[in-house]
């Protein structure tokens, strides 16, 4: 009986831990809180911390009007949805082939897929730019998405998941007369749902935030995603108005940030799932 309270206390964080953890957390959110302060207050308060300062979304309105952010939002949304859709379709087909078929060249093909895990498209920008120029795709959304359509990560993740699905289910469905595609669609895909969600969240947040390749392959607002638009907007050196730039910054990150705050658990679990493999 006596050891009971001791065990509960054992290894529990002390007040010192709590203090340190909170200090680190406050330090961590400080730049963000500061950005929010600046974005929601008139410029003259951006460096004066006065609790009575008037709040407002004027900065957002002015940022929205100062650059084609509506277009950027549209581009990023289309881009992210397009990439995810293609990644899922191609990834599912390839993963199914690797998981449930024995065919000559399978190991070589799988090794070829894994190569992309180490040499990502992010590095091969010079050659990929040349390819896009040859295809006449420079400054299109398709050009931003193409190098990412076949995702080794998606194939790998789904293959692992499919391998874990009992073969008996597959065979039972075949006995019923289902074709390979029907089995894939009716048996494998539904059972892998959590993995699809996980991959979707990781892919969407990666491509919503991706910058270097879109910067290289676009040169007009027509195809620019939000990140590039934001960079172009904030690097114009005509009398930097910090409150507007900060408002634009928050605006572009808002959808992911809100989604994250609403679905924190799913986000965290998805990133875990995707990382553990």
């Amino acid at each position, binding site marked *: 009986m006596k*050891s009971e309270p001791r065990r509960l206390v*054992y*290894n*529990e*964080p002390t007040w010192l*831990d709590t203090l340190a*953890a*909170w200090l*680190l*957390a406050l330090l*961590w959110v*400080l730049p*963000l809180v*500061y*950005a929010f302060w*600046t974005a929601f207050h008139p410029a003259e308060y951006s460096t004066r911390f006065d609790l009575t300062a008037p709040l407002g979304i004027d900065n957002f309105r002015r940022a929205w009007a100062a650059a084609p952010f509506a277009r950027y939002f549209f581009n990023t949304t289309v881009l992210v949805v397009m990439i995810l859709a293609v990644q899922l379709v*191609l990834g599912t*087909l*390839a993963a199914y*082939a690797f998981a449930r*078929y024995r*065919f000559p060249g399978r190991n070589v093909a799988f090794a*070829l*897929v894994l*190569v992309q895990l*180490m*040499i*990502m*498209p*992010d590095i*091969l*920008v*010079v*050659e*990929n*730019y040349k*390819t896009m120029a040859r295809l006449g795709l420079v400054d299109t959304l398709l050009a931003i998405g*193409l*190098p990412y359509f*076949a995702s080794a990560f998606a194939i790998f993740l789904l293959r692992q998941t499919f391998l874990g699905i009992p073969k008996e289910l597959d065979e039972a469905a075949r006995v019923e007369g289902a074709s*390979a595609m029907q089995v894939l669609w009716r048996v494998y895909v539904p059972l892998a749902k959590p993995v699809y969600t996980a991959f979707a969240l990781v892919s969407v947040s990666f491509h*919503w*935030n991706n*910058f*270097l390749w879109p910067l290289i392959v676009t040169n007009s607002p027509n195809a620019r995603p*939000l*990140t590039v638009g*934001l*960079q172009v907007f904030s*690097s114009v050196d005509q009398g930097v108005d910090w409150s507007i*730039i*900060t408002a634009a*910054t928050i605006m572009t*990150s808002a959808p992911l940030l809100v989604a*994250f705050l609403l679905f*924190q658990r799913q*986000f*965290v679990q998805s990133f*875990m799932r995707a*990382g553990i493999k």
Partner: protein
Amino acid sequence: MRNRAAVHAWLMLLPALVLLVGFTHWPAVSTLFDSFHSTPRGGRPAVWVGLENYQVMASDPVFWKAVRNNLIFASATIPASIGLALLMALWVNERIAGRAFLRMAYFTPTVLPMIAVANIWLFFYTPQYGLLEQITGALGLPSHNWLGSPSTALGAVTVVAIWKEAGFFMIFYLAALQTLNPSLREAAAIEGASRWYFFRRVQWPLLMPTTLFVLVNAFINAFRMVDHLFVMTRGGPDNASILLLYHLYEVGFSFWDTAYASAITVVLVVVLAGIALFQFFVLDKRVHYK
């Protein structure tokens, strides 16, 4: 029957493989090819120049500066972000006051675009107006242009990278900690092991696979993460904060010397492939507690 299945399988693989070959394997090979040729300009096509691009590289002071900076950047961001991630995970894994808030605070930087993060920190670092200046000013310290002076620019962008990454790695540690058997802790309590001892002898060894996974990712990111440079320093002042991939971008897309840029790409590919092979052949063989 067997043949038909093989044809089916290859048909399912085909779209993904074509794209992979087109945008990963082919560019990787042609990068190597191009790095031995001159940059085609105007009407002059590329000609074989052997190792000339690599000789240019060897005598390019900016390249060496970028290599040096990248090594410093890596050796600061990797241990710092992993250490902080572990600390965060250990805290958030316990019943600590305000756990949900803490977890959110640590993880939030991860979901923000690096460009947005860079904007926020740029303002944070701004001389005179920035929050940092206001804090140091209130403490009576002299004003300092963190991003504008060669001695602190690299450090300033390194801090941003750590801030962005630590919460991401925390997730993997947290996941691993939650799978540890609770009876280990009970046993340690009965034995009267100190907290530090429990961490060093039980948690840390069991977290080893996670640490290695995170380590490889941190390594790759150290050579891939350059977005913030575009906003914060543009590699400056005087190349003080330039990193390899940024240098590659400048050579390839500001100076349009694509042949030399290909040579730099080859270096980056070799670095990344080296990390991957090291992971595959050394780490995966050595460490398995699963």
